[in-house]
């Protein structure tokens, strides 16, 4: 995403610099709009997984915009992106693994086994 610019950063740097102010303001507006959409989305009457996916996608988009534009990864050397993504990917994967582990049946804590049993009954009825 960023390497093409990194290598040729020196030459067209000047035009990019000029426009950055505009870009930043536009992105900020975009981010604000996405946030608004997110808030709106939670009220929509769709199935849960669809909403969750939408929310996740929207926040990932916001996330990427901030790191690639506000944090200039887009204009920087590729290595910065790699460096950050090493952390991001390992952290993300670890979070995912933890949630999987704790989501398993064996991990339901005794303090909420009772609650679950009630929920199961409710589902059966």
């Amino acid at each position, binding site marked *: 995403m960023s390497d093409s610019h990194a290598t040729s950063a020196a030459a067209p740097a000047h035009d990019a610099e000029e426009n950055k102010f505009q870009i930043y303001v536009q992105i900020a507006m975009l981010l604000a709009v996405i*946030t608004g959409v*997110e808030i709106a989305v939670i009220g929509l009457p769709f199935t849960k997984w669809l909403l969750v996916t939408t929310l996740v996608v929207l926040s990932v988009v*916001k996330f990427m915009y901030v790191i690639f534009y506000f944090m200039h990864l887009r204009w920087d050397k590729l290595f910065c992106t790699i460096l950050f993504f090493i952390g991001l990917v*390992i952290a993300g994967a*670890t979070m995912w693994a933890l*949630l999987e582990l704790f989501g398993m049946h064996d991990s339901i804590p005794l303090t909420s086994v009772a609650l679950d049993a009630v929920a199961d009954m409710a589902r059966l009825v």
Partner: protein
Amino acid sequence: MSSSHAATGAIDHHHDHTTTTGIPNKKLLMWAFLASDCMFFGSLISTHLVYRLHPPPGNPVPREVFDIPLTSFSTFILLMSSLMMALAVNAIQKGNLKSMRFSLLTTIFFGAIFLGCQVFEFTHFVHEKHMTITNSILGTTFFTLTGTHGTHVAIGVLWLIMMYVRSFKPADASAHPGWFFRNVLHVAAVVGLVLTAMFSVLALVDALETGGGIGAFASHNVALVAGLVITAAASVILARPKGPVQFSEANAIDVESMGLYWHFVDIVWIVIFTAVYLLEYL
């Protein structure tokens, strides 16, 4: 840092000839630190989510506690602060000191509003919703997570203030023997200003809510108001530059790495906003 480029003219902010990779050391340090911080917040957010998976009986129901309009507002504020931060970096990279100072001040301002919202939110949760850090697992993980994020914001604000004040350091320190103490005073004044302003606004909101109005606020918080006036005056007076300053385009990297930190704190909030708040409403 990059005085070597002074001879060749413009500083290339994307390439530092003195390092092997061309990435300035400070930037690399900051990115590596942020990679580490991903793991830090990753563990913290995981803790919160893991406990959300299996709430014990008696846990408060989050959507009955949370206040989405307020949180949306502070999310918006943090986004705007990010914008101002980006503009500050942009300004100093072009050598525009005045514009940078202005942008930094706005960033500080937005950061302070965010913190104020958080203080308000916390007190609200504790007093109105009776969720404390000790009385439930939700309170424990929620306050710890958002509190840690808030601490990051507070550190960021402090850093911003120090950077702002540093931009007044005279170019020739030996000609201004008192500059260091002036500098310290300046930091103290701005920190004081931010704090008093924050608490004034909180008190004001409180006064308005309870129906007392501005008059009640002013009469109950004389000290705050006085503090506000004094620190504001001190900040303005101390900010009058004395001759040429040292801060220049060459310091852009300092502002930039601070900016990286600030934006990161912002994206952590983007994740928290979705994972901790919004998902509860589905």
